[in-house]
């Protein structure tokens, strides 16, 4: 048996095919190792469950969020009862079930927080892309508009607008989105200006790609990381904004159970029933803290330098 035969009959070498992990997979794995981010996700899922299952809780307790139960919820002296088997977290000053109201309030908070963020993100990305990509007079006009929005005392204007048009959930969402999109547009605009001059956009432009194609196919994917981070931080801001408006009595319809309105209801009764203040405050704090921590976690996970 000659040497060449041996080489010929040698076992075919198994090449281990190395699959590169995509950037999203890497980011997800980094995020899963971040204990604070995982804890935040758990809290967010719990709050979401509270919101989704709100009608179920109403069914179990037999308490509607809007109905007053003066005979069972108020003591003979007219004070609200504390936490117990009937009213899990106690009753409010009008004899309504605090837990059921908080669960329905979670719906409002999440609805407003998420939809305002989506709206602000879409609007901000479009305006930022156009301003950054075209430059010139388009950028001039849009940048001035952003300046006006950012220099507006937005809380004051939001208060005026909501009070004047009448409080409702869609209006609250719109107002929050309108005053949040400018920050998003600023960031997107800055990034787009950077990408406009880069070699890969030059290359596709020389191949005859249309401006729309360059913006959507070539530039937009590069913006996903900063936009995701900013959007995840917009959610808690929007939730707090809604709670603040409702606390001032200018948010969603005052009868709708919202965390801000529940907090406002408690202000005259916290001496006799501290739970009225403590439970909504803790819930609001936990939710915003969780979204903030998750946003920070996402930022770290998406950062390629880590």
């Amino acid at each position: 048996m000659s040497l060449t035969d041996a080489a010929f009959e040698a076992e075919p070498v198994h090449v281990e095919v190395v699959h590169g992990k995509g950037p999203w997979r890497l980011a997800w794995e980094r995020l899963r190792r971040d204990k604070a981010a995982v804890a935040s996700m758990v809290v967010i899922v719990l709050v979401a469950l509270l919101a989704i299952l709100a009608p179920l809780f109403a069914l179990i307790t037999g308490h509607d969020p809007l109905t007053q139960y003066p005979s069972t919820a108020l003591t003979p002296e007219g004070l609200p009862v504390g936490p117990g088997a009937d009213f899990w977290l106690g009753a409010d000053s009008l004899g309504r079930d605090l837990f059921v109201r908080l669960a329905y309030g979670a719906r409002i908070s999440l609805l407003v927080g998420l939809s305002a963020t989506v709206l602000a993100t879409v609007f901000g990305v479009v305006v930022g892309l156009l301003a950054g990509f075209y430059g010139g007079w388009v950028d001039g006009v849009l940048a001035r508009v952003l300046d006006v929005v950012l220099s507006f005392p937005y809380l004051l204007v939001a208060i005026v607008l909501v009070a004047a048009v009448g409080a409702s959930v869609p209006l609250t969402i719109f107002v929050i989105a309108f005053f949040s999109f400018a920050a998003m547009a600023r960031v997107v605009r800055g990034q787009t200006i950077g990408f406009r001059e880069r070699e890969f956009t030059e290359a596709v432009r020389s191949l005859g790609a249309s401006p729309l194609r360059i913006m959507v196919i070539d530039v937009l994917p590069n913006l996903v990381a900063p936009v995701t981070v900013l959007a995840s931080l917009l959610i808690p801001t929007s939730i707090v904004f809604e709670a603040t408006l409702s606390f001032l009595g200018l948010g969603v319809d005052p009868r709708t159970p919202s965390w801000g309105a529940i907090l406002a209801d408690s202000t005259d009764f916290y001496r006799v029933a501290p739970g009225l203040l403590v439970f909504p405050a803790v819930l609001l704090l936990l939710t915003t803290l969780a979204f903030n921590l998750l946003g920070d976690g996402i930022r770290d996970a998406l950062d390629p330098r880590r």
Partner: protein
Amino acid sequence: MVRLVNYTALIVVASSLAWLLAAVTLDPRANYAGRTPAPPAAVVDAALSEVNLNDRDPLLDRYLTWASGLVRGDFGRTWDGLSVGADLAERAGVTLRLVTAGLVAGALIGLTVGTLAAVHHRRWFDRLSGGVVFLLLAVPAVVLANVLILGAIWVNDTTGTRFLMVSGETTTGGLLDRLGHLVLPALTLALPLAAVVSRYQRNTMLDVLNADHVRTARAKGLPRRTVIVKHALRTALIPTSAYLTFTFGALLVGSTVTETVFGRHGLGQRLIAAIRTGDVNTVAAITTVAAVALLLSAVAADVLQRVLNPGRAR
């Protein structure tokens, strides 16, 4: 100079938009609706036209009347004929006291904590303050104010004193009494500010502590304390003080919630009351004042940054 023109244009646009928004949406006529006997429509019209609040007058005419008044420094009148300017001047004092107290307290706490955290980098104080800062950044002002109220009631009950007050500006008029009313609302503004400032200060201080001139000072044999205070802290204060100046305008706007919770009759509380009574001129005036304050503090921060920049001192 170009910037100044830009800023002036911004203020004109912002205040005009605020007035238009208020004029189109608010309803000062509602103030007369509940009266018995109902005043004749002509009387109401005349009374509203008198103070430039009649929604049946052409919008453009009303706008021009308002704008020409504003240019002469006249903010117009409220629905019951009072001068908006005089009313706001009084209210502005209340808000200014609160915001100043909050800003000073926030700056002092933030600078101290931030500097200490940088000096004790990665030791227990740094970690602890980092955690507290994160918590404070997530607390909504509404929650923080109410938590402080609960805390104050507990302090008053346990010590048996009544120093910390949760509502109004003063009951007896004494200086100590005013202070007792000021502590909680000022803390509500100061704590979140202190959280941001301490983070800011910690990061600049960390940069500065590793800078060449600080290492040289240490190498000369100067004591650690002298180097930290005289060489490092002085340099690190520049960006932080610019940030603080910039914050002033934002605090003015942010004090609305605090004033409402603590029942202080400042600008923010006046705004909400003005919306309820349909006082277009008051709403526009407060928005204008806030916009001017925001831009002025932005300009001041710019100037401060340039003046204090050690690179320009040569």
